[in-house]
């Protein structure tokens, strides 16, 4: 039997697989028992009520999809009284994804959701910071640090910082989040993108631009996970285009301690279960007793062959 548990800071997860924020809700429990998952992560909530973006909110592109859902939110009381109780009997630890327009707003919201039943906070700092001209917190080391620092002061729960891929140097942001006390990083959110409908020359999303997710972004996010894992000591949770156990293994080998699955659950809602099974199988085949051994197992020693050995000789 493979030991599938992984440690994320002070926390031990039964396995390294969990949903990505915004691609999971209680509806998934109609399909399978959520206790199978390593953790649960809610859709991002905000303190204020929000309706979200205009329609259409999603569009297909080769190898993935665009979304501009926005963050429809019914506020904190609704979350605490209607959503949270649903997970009362669930063993998988629950992380609440939060977002706010200011660092103080983040801290207040973190405090408000630090209640029994919540295991930790995922700070979705890819949202616009109204104090920095609408630029996302996660696009600036300073804003990242400020937000995470205030959140940490406002809650006793573990705090994961979810980074944005829309940056020139993700390692710099990763270090700022670590500096500020983040317990782990989630790398990363969707990549800002766009598509145009040539029937009517309109953007395919009501919001004009939106986030690209799915297999198309995997090589980009994998690179960012690798860069972050080398830049910080806290665990990195990989998220971006993971659809198979092999994808998950690649992220772990690049340095991820755990993974989140988003869009792939829309294509097959059992994807996370298949990734868990497949990771166990992969470990068994390769002689790893613990899935955690995959983390950072990338081999960088130079290959001494002069030229790649690729002769097709039987």
């Amino acid at each position, binding site marked *: 039997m493979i030991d599938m548990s992984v440690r994320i800071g002070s926390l031990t997860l039964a396995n390294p697989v969990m949903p990505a924020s*915004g*691609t*999971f*809700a*209680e*509806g*998934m*429990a*109609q*399909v*399978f*028992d*959520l206790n199978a998952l390593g953790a649960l992560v809610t*859709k991002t909530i905000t303190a204020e009520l929000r*309706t*979200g973006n205009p*329609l*259409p*909110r*999603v569009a*297909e*592109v*080769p*190898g*993935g*999809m665009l*979304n501009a*859902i926005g963050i*429809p939110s019914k506020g904190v009381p609704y979350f605490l009284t*209607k959503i949270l*109780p*649903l*997970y*009362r*009997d*669930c063993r998988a630890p629950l992380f609440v994804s939060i977002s706010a327009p200011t660092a103080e707003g983040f801290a207040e919201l973190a405090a408000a959701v630090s209640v029994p039943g919540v295991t930790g906070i995922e700070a979705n700092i890819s949202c616009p910071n109204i104090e920095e001209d609408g630029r996302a917190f996660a696009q600036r080391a300073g804003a990242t640090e400020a937000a995470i620092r205030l959140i940490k002061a406002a809650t006793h729960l573990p705090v994961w910082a979810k980074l944005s891929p829309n940056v020139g140097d993700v390692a710099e942001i990763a270090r700022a989040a670590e500096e500020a006390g983040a317990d782990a990083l989630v790398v990363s959110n969707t990549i800002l993108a766009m598509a145009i409908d040539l029937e009517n020359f309109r953007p395919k999303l009501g919001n004009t631009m939106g986030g690209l997710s*799915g297999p198309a972004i995997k090589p980009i996010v994998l690179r960012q996970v690798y860069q972050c894992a080398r830049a910080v000591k806290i665990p990195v949770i990989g998220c971006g285009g993971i659809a198979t156990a092999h994808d998950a293994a690649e992220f772990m080998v690049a340095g991820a301690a755990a993974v989140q699955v988003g869009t792939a*659950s*829309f*294509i*097959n*809602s*059992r994807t996370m279960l298949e990734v868990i099974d497949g990771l166990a199988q992969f470990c068994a085949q390769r002689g790893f007793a613990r899935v955690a051994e995959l983390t950072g197992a990338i081999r960088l020693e130079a290959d001494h062959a002069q030229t790649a050995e690729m002769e097709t000789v039987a």
Partner: protein
Amino acid sequence: MTYAALPATPSVADERGIVLHNEKVNAEYRHLVVGTSALAATAKPGQFFQLACPQPPGETPYLRRPMSVYGADPKAHTVSFLYKVAGAGTRGLAMLRQGDRCGLMGPLGHGFWLDQAWRNIVVLGRGVGLATLGPLAGMAQKAGVGVTAILSARSPALVMSEEVFREAGAHVIAVTDSEGTADPANVDRLMRGLIADGLCAAMFTCGSSRLLKLLQKLARAHDLPGQVALEQQMACGLGMCFCCVRDFIVDGQTEHRRVCWDGPVFDLREAVA
């Protein structure tokens, strides 16, 4: 849909069914029958499935496509669909051959509901909306509720599901553009007649905003209940992604509801056409 706690057992199957039949019904529509698990075959009228679509040459449908249950046989373990070939995804579906595997998830959402007190209901549908409304006739028959079905189409040859309604004992009125009987004024006249005759304890429709508006006016004027099955682009189908919202007016307030989760069948009067 709301829970008090998470469901203890799965109510939705996500599986690879086996294609038993996928043939043309007429120039535009196809009938797909899939062998499924027992769970999938419990689907009720008005519920839907998310279907994985094979890739037609040069196209890459990525998301699954929502399709209403056109029929479900809990004994034979089959679910069937009636679909129109519209774009990349449905072109992909049309490629499925008997014996192929077909990824599908369902039953999803909640379907039509019937009040035992209703003696006779009216179903008004057009085009592929009838795929959704067809099974309602059988459901009403079982519940002892009479059905008058007004089936609208461009031409008599395109009137679909007539058999399905007739076999379920419904009284069918076909109206067509080509015969000039499908115009709103005539449908309105037919509806008023049925209401006057006490044959319309509730009204049901699907899809077309034109028909929805027409029925909403009548429902308000005569204070009659009604249900509408709505469509919206979907990604997850499980109420998770919030891409399928539509506007509803509830107690004078506009609010968003998810078609996949709060519907796809909604109160006729709350929907915004």
